[in-house]
């Protein structure tokens, strides 16, 4: 009885097959465990976190209260940091998406002079390890007088060679007819890009958007280097400094971790369809 229900549930024939399916479901739960533990720990008073089971203990929003009130008590302005993270990440993501879409269209569809050289240059940039550039980039930002400013977090990432290349590969695959039809209508370039290319390449754009958003939101080393003013820190760095000095406050640290994770998870869940589709496109 049990076996047949299970078999129906997993929809496969052989016993080995549904054993694999069950194992995979088990592993998926293991993979979710740290996330679940983080959320539950953020809702418990610190002394209960290690002593109660995953779903045991008294649940409250006390840790979040503590975190938000620590702006005045411990000079850790978490609400402000959340705002900085949102502002910076949105600015970078929008900028990368807009510039990538237009330049990718040019690269894929307009035969401007030295186009192939331009493509080679993008490929070269992607091969050269970027870790070397962190330190001289700091020197540049210092020369520009941007240390401890939001510009230091935004300007260096406003365009992305990877974004341009990925989108142009996808734009190239589109049948010429769409664009010819638009050109017959005397559609302008921005109209072609925004009303034809973007809607027809949603999945790949979702991938570029999600990876850019995640990369910027979760960037740690760069803001750690260029921002030392507590009031201008993005959440990632503020959370790390908070955990360094007040690591024993496990509950509030976990509440901070939830805040740092939540926007990424929400975006991921919201765009999961496009994401899976886009993944299979980029991996071809």
């Amino acid at each position, binding site marked *: 009885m049990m076996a047949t229900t299970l078999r129906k549930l*997993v929809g496969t024939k052989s016993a080995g097959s549904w054993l694999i399916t069950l194992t995979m479901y088990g592993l998926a739960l293991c993979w979710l465990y740290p996330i679940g533990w983080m959320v539950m720990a953020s809702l418990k008073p610190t002394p209960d976190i290690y002593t109660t089971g995953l779903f045991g203990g008294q649940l409250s929003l006390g840790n979040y209260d503590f975190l938000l009130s620590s702006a005045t008590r411990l000079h850790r302005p978490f609400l402000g940091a959340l705002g900085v993270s949102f502002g910076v990440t949105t600015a970078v993501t929008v900028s990368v998406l807009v510039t990538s879409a237009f330049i990718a269209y040019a690269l894929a569809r307009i035969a401007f002079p030295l186009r192939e050289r331009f493509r080679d240059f993008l490929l070269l940039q992607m091969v050269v390890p970027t870790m070397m550039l962190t330190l001289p980039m700091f020197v540049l930002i210092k020369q520009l007088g941007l240390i401890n400013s939001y510009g230091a977090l935004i300007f260096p990432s406003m365009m992305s060679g990877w974004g341009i290349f990925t989108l142009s590969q996808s734009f190239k695959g589109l049948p010429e007819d769409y664009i010819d039809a638009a050109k017959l209508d005397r559609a302008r370039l921005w109209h072609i890009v925004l009303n034809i290319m973007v809607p027809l390449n949603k999945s790949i754009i979702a991938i570029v958007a999600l990876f850019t958003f995640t990369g910027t*939101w979760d960037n740690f080393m760069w803001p750690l280097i260029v921002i030392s003013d507590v009031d201008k820190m993005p959440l990632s760095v503020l959370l790390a400094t908070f955990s360094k000095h007040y690591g024993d406050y496990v509950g509030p640290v976990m509440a901070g971790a939830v805040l740092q994770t939540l926007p990424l998870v929400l975006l991921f869940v919201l765009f999961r369809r496009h994401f899976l589709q886009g993944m299979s496109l980029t991996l071809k």
Partner: protein
Amino acid sequence: MRESIGRISEVQIGALLALSYLLFSAVFWAYPFIWLTILSFSDWRFFGAPSFSGLHNLLVVLRDPDFWGGLWNVIRFFSIYFPIAFAGSLGFAFGLKHIGHGKAFIALCFLLANISSGVAFSLVFTKLFSSTGPINNFVFSCFGFRIPWMSDPTLAMLAIALVVAWKFIGYYGLIIYSGLQTIPRDLYDAALLDNTPPFKRLLRITLPMINAQLIMVMVFTILVSFGIFTEPYLITGGGPLGRTNTPLMVIYETAFRRLQPGHAAMMSVIVATASYVLIRIARKLMERDVKLA
């Protein structure tokens, strides 16, 4: 007439768009490269003009035990991380292929780890691994001892490798899975007709056919081994005794704590070159040009 004006301006617009990116790259890519070159061969403490010091930085860096320690830790990390990530992602890909319902759901569970925050989960895993944390509580209740994750150099490295593997196995696995999807069914049918045993099928058909994806995963693991910063910085802080110090952490320390950007620049050139050369060698050794005859 109007038509031709339109076409000319389109080419010009294309060139202008490309030019905008080239200008951006000139400021935020080429210019830093020039600075990197200058810094590598000069003495400078962030103020005043850099003074040329020849190969002095190179000699200092080559005699710096912290630098060599960082490079050695790359090898230690890789030798733990690579088997876990490689076997894990292969297993994930094969498992995913055999699932009936809920393929997308399972894939999303694993990918959730990939897009979630490295900073947040470095902190979460620090708590999970701590001596009174849930993992040790579980081990203690089963076996009566606790695992000293943070005080033993190898276990500390293993802890970091596990956290990074948790993050990337879903992504690597999906890469391999996409390779598995492209293998034509008839290859297996032919092998079945020949009574080829399963292990031989894996070795002779499956693995060669996904060679490109396996190499991609291998390149990613090498890049990660050289490039991790957030996880060791937040989980172990480089300890115990610098045994989980990564090159990026050494470079960061050298530039911003010891205030020796010249030395740090030289280090980053060496580390980047090493990672580049290693990837080239690995590709040379592993790459097979697989064709269906």
